[in-house]
């Protein structure tokens, strides 16, 4: 009998039984759905920037400086006559790139260091002392200090934002590792002579994924905000790059006459961060309600 034979039968039987619970699941986890939908929409807009943008984001038009929003310029123009709408759409790419990269990079480093601290006794003290030290410096200040020693570019901004976030993941992973270390299945794996890296990869890591994903989501939200703050302060991505923080910095001197330069990128930024936070809250509640106490 071909192995694919049973599939159509189960698929045919499944729908009537499943529709009701799935609908209820959606309603119960509306924050998750709302967050995911908003975030997907923002990501789609950023990725489709070349097709959505009405103007070239770098095009300077001295005759059209500081114009209010109109049919021609939906979000108005900035001090150099550039189209705020097109720049804002392109700016989403920087935020998305930073959010995703920082969350991934911080998780990776945090998992390695956190599990090591949890399982390798001599490394625990060293790793945790360094993390305590890093956590004593406020995120933004640490990122600013790191930006002071490296040439500003998208990559260096990502690194500078990642480092302050790493201790958060390390602490989470270490505490999970300390609990898991005492579990019977880990002890059993030890007893039969499984090597530590294999135990960590096969038995420990899968049990930490839920809290890790939730934590990574919140880190992405913090990263997007920090990137915008760094750019706004003039120590983020290079000034000519259209990013939401850079745009708001450029609008700083025109608050009274052209508030739209700050308002629209700021609103897009807020919606994006809100979407990620809702997604994180939703994931936490949907995946494991007990986590609510830990994070």
């Amino acid at each position, binding site marked *: 009998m071909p192995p694919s034979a049973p599939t159509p039968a189960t698929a045919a039987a499944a729908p009537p039984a499943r529709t009701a619970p799935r609908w209820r699941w959606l309603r119960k986890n509306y924050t998750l759905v709302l967050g995911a939908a908003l975030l997907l929409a923002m990501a789609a807009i950023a990725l489709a920037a070349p097709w959505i943008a009405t103007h070239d984001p770098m095009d300077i038009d001295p005759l059209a400086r500081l114009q209010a929003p109109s049919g021609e310029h939906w979000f108005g123009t900035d001090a150099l006559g550039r189209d705020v709408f097109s720049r804002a759409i392109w700016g989403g790419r920087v935020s998305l790139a930073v959010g995703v990269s920082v969350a991934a990079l911080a998780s990776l480093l945090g998992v390695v260091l956190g599990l090591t601290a949890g399982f390798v006794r001599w490394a625990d003290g060293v790793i945790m002392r360094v993390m305590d*030290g890093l956590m004593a410096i406020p*995120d933004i*200040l640490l990122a*600013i*200090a790191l930006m002071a020693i490296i040439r500003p570019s998208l990559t260096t901004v990502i690194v500078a934002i990642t480092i302050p976030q790493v201790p958060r993941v390390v602490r989470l992973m270490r505490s999970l590792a300390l609990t898991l270390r005492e579990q019977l299945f880990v002890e059993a794996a030890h007893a039969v002579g499984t090597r530590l890296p294999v135990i960590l990869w096969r038995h420990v890591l899968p049990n930490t994924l839920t809290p890790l994903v939730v934590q990574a989501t919140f880190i992405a939200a913090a990263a997007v905000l920090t990137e915008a703050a760094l750019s706004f302060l003039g120590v983020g991505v290079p000034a000519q790059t259209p990013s939401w923080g850079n745009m*708001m910095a450029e609008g700083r001197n025109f608050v009274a006459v052209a*508030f739209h330069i700050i308002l629209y990128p700021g609103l897009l930024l807020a919606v994006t961060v809100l979407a990620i*936070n809702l997604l994180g809250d939703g994931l936490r509640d949907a995946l494991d309600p007990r986590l609510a106490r830990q994070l």
Partner: protein
Amino acid sequence: MNYLFSRILATLPVMAVVACFVFLLIHLSPGDPAALIAGDMATVEDIEKLRASLGLDQPLWQQFGLWAARLAQGDLGVSIFTHVPVTQLLAQRIGPTASIALLTMAMALVVAIPLGVLAAHNAGTWIDRLVMLFAVLAFSVPVFLIGYLLIYSFAIQLQWFPVQGYVPLSEGVGPWLRSLVLPCVNLALVYIALITRMTRATVLEVLHEDYIRTARAKGLSLLPVLGHALRNAAVPIATTVGVGIALLIGGVVVTETVFAIPGIGRLVIDSVQRHDYPVIQSVLLLSAGVYVLINLLIDLSYTLFDPRIRY
């Protein structure tokens, strides 16, 4: 007493790590530290002169020893850009920053704790949802967007407050407060969100305890009961206040730029653009020191809230 001693001792390794990191900061750079400090316009000669004058030609451990010894005496070095001792620069700038931080903290506590208790008491109702919605929004909307919205509406349109700038306390309490209202409201929102969430969560948990039910059953009215609940929820709330200090300090940096306030935050941003590393290093040390100290004090204050905790 024993705990007190060991708790104070535990701050030493943290500060030591911070000090090492801060010292190594310029050496962590992928390039030549002397060239980094000298800037893009410097000639080779300038760089060599700077290297010798800053002692960067000495072995690393020797540099660290010298630096740490001076640090222990409270000498933070001299600003490369202004040639003024860093301690003096910090002293000039600490007033506005401390004013904002303290006022924001006071404002946040006064608003957040009642708000959190209110939400917990009305858990699941529209009041609770509204408070939680506010918390999520305050976490998501960037500080600088709210700052400009406040400037636009209350300073430019309504003209209730000055648009930007800072008036020192020595010029009168009224003008000082007026210059601080908008920045502090701005900064307090995130902090309020953080403390409200924690207050709600812990008070909600305490409200399910037996002694609360007993107090209600014997006819104690609502406010004293909430008072009991709040006191029992105080320790986690205090911890959140302490951890939030980092958020507060980070927020001050951004708020000072929005409201053009010449504080520590503005100083550090200017210093980054001027490659003035001694100043950046000192601000990092200062803020970490403040964070560690406040958290130490909060830890030690737990006995005030909960007599069961004894050191």
